[in-house]
C-alpha cells in the first residue's frame, strides 16, 4: 500500500495513529479477501491460488456498475458481490469439483490457468490500465480525528469491514449453517453420514467465500489497485494470510491479516526503501516455527 509522505504528520503520536489506522484498514481488506480461501481450502483441501481472481472481479464489477449506470458505491457493492458469488458457485460445480482429490501439482496448475485466463479476459474487456473507483463526494475528503487528518473513506471501509466480519462471525459460530461447515471441516465422512450433502455445502461455501473476496476487492480498490495483474500481483499476500492464519478457520486469518496489514504498513513507513522484505522474512520464520499456521496444530 502506498502512503504519501504528505499524509503523515511530523509527530510520533500522529505517525503511530496513522500507521495503526492504515494498517487496520489494510488488514480488514486482506481479511475479507482471504477468509473465504481459508475456509474452502480447509473444507476441500484444494490449493486454490486463483482466489484473488474473485476479488479482482468484484472490483471490476463494482467499478463498471458505478461508471456505466451511475450507481452509488453502496448500491454497486452488493450487486458486484452477488454476481461474483454466482460465478464462484458455477465454477465450483463445473471445474473445481473435478479436481478434488487430485494431486497438489494439478490443483496448483489448474488455478494458475484460471489466473491467466482471468487476466486475459479482464485485459481484453477493460484494457491494461488500473480502474479507479469514483468515490461519492462526501467520502472523498479527510476527516479530523483528535487533531489528525485521516481519509474519510478509510473510516467507512473500517466500519463496513468490521460489520461484515461480525456478521460472518455470527453465521459461522452461531448458526446451524455455520455448524454444518465446521462439521464438514472436522470430518467430512461423518458429516455425510448424518445427512449433510457436503458437495452442495462446498459449492455454497465456495460461492460465499468468493463473494466476500469480491466485496474485499471492491472496497479495497484504492489499497490494492484494480488492474489485470491483480491476481498475480497480490497472490503472495492472500496465500500468506491463509498459511499463517491456518486452514479452515475464520479467526486465524483475522489475526494474520491484521498483523500483516499493520506490520506491512509500519515497515513501509519506517523503511520505505526496504519494501516488503521484512514482512516476508517474518512470515518465513513464522511458518518454519508453525507450519500449520497460528491456529493449526504444531
Amino acid at each position, binding site marked *: 500500500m502506498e502512503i504519501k509522505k504528505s499524509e503523515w504528520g511530523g509527530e510520533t503520536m500522529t505517525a503511530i495513529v496513522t500507521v495503526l489506522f492504515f494498517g487496520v484498514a489494510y488488514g480488514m481488506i486482506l481479511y475479507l479477501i482471504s477468509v473465504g480461501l481459508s475456509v474452502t*481450502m480447509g473444507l476441500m483441501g484444494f*490449493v486454490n491460488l486463483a482466489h484473488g481472481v474473485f476479488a479482482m472481479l468484484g472490483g471490476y464489477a463494482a467499478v463498471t456498475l458505478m461508471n456505466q449506470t451511475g450507481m452509488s458505491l453502496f448500491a454497486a457493492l452488493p450487486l458486484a458481490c452477488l454476481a461474483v458469488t454466482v460465478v464462484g458457485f458455477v465454477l465450483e460445480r463445473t*471445474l473445481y469439483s*473435478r*479436481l478434488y482429490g*487430485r494431486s*497438489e*501439482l*494439478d490443483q*496448483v*496448475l*489448474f488455478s*494458475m*490457468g*484460471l*489466473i*491467466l*485466463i*482471468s*487476466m*486475459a*479476459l479482464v*485485459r*481484453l474487456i477493460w484494457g491494461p490500465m488500473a480502474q479507479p473507483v469514483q468515490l461519492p463526494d462526501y467520502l472523498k475528503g479527510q476527516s479530523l480525528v483528535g487533531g489528525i487528518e485521516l481519509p474519510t473513506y478509510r473510516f467507512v471501509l473500517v466500519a463496513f469491514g468490521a460489520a461484515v466480519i461480525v456478521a460472518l462471525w455470527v453465521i459461522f459460530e452461531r448458526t446451524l449453517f455455520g455448524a454444518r461447515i465446521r462439521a464438514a471441516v472436522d470430518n467430512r465422512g461423518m458429516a455425510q453420514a448424518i445427512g449433510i450433502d457436503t458437495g452442495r455445502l462446498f459449492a455454497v461455501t465456495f460461492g460465499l467465500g468468493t463473494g466476500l473476496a469480491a466485496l474485499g476487492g471492491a472496497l479495497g480498490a484504492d489499497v490494492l489497485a484494480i488492474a*489485470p495483474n491483480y491476481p*498475480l500481483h497480490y*497472490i*503472495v499476500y492472500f*496465500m*500468506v494470510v*491463509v*498459511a499463517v492464519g491456518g*486452514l479452515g478457520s475464520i479467526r486465524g486469518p483475522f489475526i494474520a491479516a491484521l498483523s500483516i496489514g499493520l506490520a506491512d504498513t509500519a515497515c513501509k513507513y519506517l523503511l520505505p*526503501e*526496504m*519494501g*516488503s*522484505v521484512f514482512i*516476508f*522474512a517474518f*512470515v*518465513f520464520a513464522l*511458518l*518454519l516455527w508453525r*507450519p*500449520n*499456521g497460528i491456529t493449526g496444530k504444531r
Partner: protein
Amino acid sequence: MTDRSTAAILLLPPDGVSGTRKALSMSLWLAALAIPTLVPGYTPLANQMVVMILFALSLDLLVGFTGIVTLGHAALFGTGAYTAGILALRLTNDPLITALCGMAAAALVGLVTGSCMLRTKGLAFLVLSLAAAFMLHELANMASSVTGGDDGLQGVSFSPLLGVFEFDFRGHTAFYYSLACLFAAFLLVRRVVNSPFGWSLRGIRENDGRMRAIGCPIYARRLAAYVMSSALAGLAGALQAQTTQFVALNSLSLELSGDVLIMLILGGSGRLYGAFVGVPLFMFAQDLLAKEDPANWYLGQGLILMVMTLFVPGGVLGLVERLRRNLGRGGRR
C-alpha cells in the same frame, strides 16, 4: 558398459529403453547441432530455448522425480544470472569461471532456503517458496547500485570461451556453448535419476512415510535433490546472462517461475524429455499468440493449463505414450 562405444554410452538411455527411442534421442541431439547451419537466423531463439530447457530440466528433478512443487524456482535461475553478470562487471568475465560461480551461488541459495523450506509440506511449502523468491526479487530491486534495479544489468560482456571462441552477434558460439552445457546437464540428470539415489527420490515421491520406515533420511535426500536442482537452475541463469549479455529483474520473478512450470508440465514431468518437448512448444505458442496482444498469450497459457490438468495429465509425452499404447505395438512414433 565398457564394450560399447563412447558415443553410445553418452547418448543412449540405460538398459530397458527401446531402440526406436534411442535412435530418436540421438537424432534429436544431432539435429540440434545443425540448427546454426540450417536456419542461421533462428540461432538466438534456439539458444534461448536451450537455456530454458536446461532450466525446466532442473525443475523436473524436483517436480517430476521428487514430488516437490515449488512456485519460486526462478529465485535460483536469477541468482545464477546475477552472479555471472555482476562478476563479469566487477571481477572476471571468463565465461566458464562465472558459470561455475553462478552454479555455486545458486546451490548455496538452494541449500540455505531449501534447508528451511523442506521442513514443511503442502501449503506452507508453497507459500515459503513464493516468499523466498519474492524476498530475493525485492532485494535485487533495492540493491540497484549492484544489480541495476529495475533496469537490469546492462552491457555485460564476456571474454572468448576458452580464450578462442568469441561470443559474436550471430550467436553461434553462444548456442553451441549452451547446447554443450545442456547436454552435460542432461547426461548428469539422466544418470542421477537412474541411480539408486534417483530411485529413492521416486520412492519419496510415492510414499515418503514408507521411505522413512526403510531407514531413508528423507530430509537429507530431498535437500540433496533441491541443491542439485538449484545448481542446474543457476547454470541456466548464468548461461542466460552470458549469451544475452543482459540480466533482467524479471529473471527472479514469479512469472518466470510460473512459465518454467508450465513449460515442464506441457511436455510432461518426470520423463527427462518433457522439458525438451515443452519448451519449444511453449515458445512457439508464445511467439504466435503474444504478437497481437499479450492478453492472447495469457489466455493461451491459461487454456493450456486447464486442458492439461483436466484432460491430459502427463503432458504431451504422456499423451504420445497413451496414443501409442492404444494404437498397439505396431505404431511407430
